[in-house]
């Protein structure tokens, strides 16, 4: 055995080196996967928290419209428009096309809600216009709840 090692120490060292390299590669691959999964989990949690915040804000718009508090509804609408633009910029490469379409729809819906709320106080709107405003704000709420 000693004779064999003495005669082939170079080959043995190469095989051992190869073995440890493979081992190191496997462990680094596992560590990299674990790190990626942890990062994805953190990002998903962050996205979920931001969506919950947006959902709450959308719910407040519906409530303020129902209470005819146009000023507060307008304030929340402006905030949510900014928030939606921020979402689209921040999560652009992580969202599916369907999710992006939903966010684009939300922002456009908010744009029209803003337009209606800016034109006249909610109390002065016709019953039909009030119903359309309420439906549009509920549509925004529903998209953020999905």
């Amino acid at each position, binding site marked *: 055995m000693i004779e064999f090692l003495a005669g082939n120490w170079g080959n043995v060292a190469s095989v051992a080196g190869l073995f440890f390299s493979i081992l190191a590669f496997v462990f680094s691959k596992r560590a990299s996967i674990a790190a990626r999964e942890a990062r994805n989990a953190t990002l998903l949690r962050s996205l979920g928290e931001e969506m919950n915040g947006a959902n709450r804000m959308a719910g407040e718009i519906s409530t303020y419209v129902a209470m005819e508090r146009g000023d507060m509804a307008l304030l929340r609408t402006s905030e949510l428009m900014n928030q939606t*633009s921020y979402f*689209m910029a921040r999560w652009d490469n992580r*969202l*599916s*096309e*369907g*999710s*992006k*379409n*939903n966010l*684009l*729809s939300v*922002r*456009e*819906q908010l*744009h*029209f*809600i803003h*337009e*209606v709320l800016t034109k006249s106080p909610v109390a002065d709107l016709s019953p*039909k*216009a009030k119903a*359309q*405003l309420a*439906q*549009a*704000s509920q*549509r925004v709420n529903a998209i953020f709840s999905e």
Partner: protein
Amino acid sequence: MDAKAVQFFEEVLSKTRAGKLRWEPTAVESDYIAAVGGQFTLSVAEYERENRYSQPIMQHSLTLKDQEGRTLTRVTDMDDGIAEAEMRELYETARRQALHVDEKIESLLGALSKL
């Protein structure tokens, strides 16, 4: 009107006829929207304006916005190369799809048949 804008209108009309776009109502009764490709929003609108004899007439428009909400192009039935009847058809088809008019009429017909 430039050829690209006319092509854009024709394509939106074609996809709307085929039911490929998801039109939605908005807080404004005469406006309907659809998001496309995760990058663009389309809106169709009906509005009143006066003709040269100061009589009110209904007009229609199709607007394309980018991801940042900037208006890229707007096509109306006053533009060259855009047939008034086709623009009206686009608006009416989008409205019917957004409000699910056909499904509701089907449902009503079902209810009426049971009377």
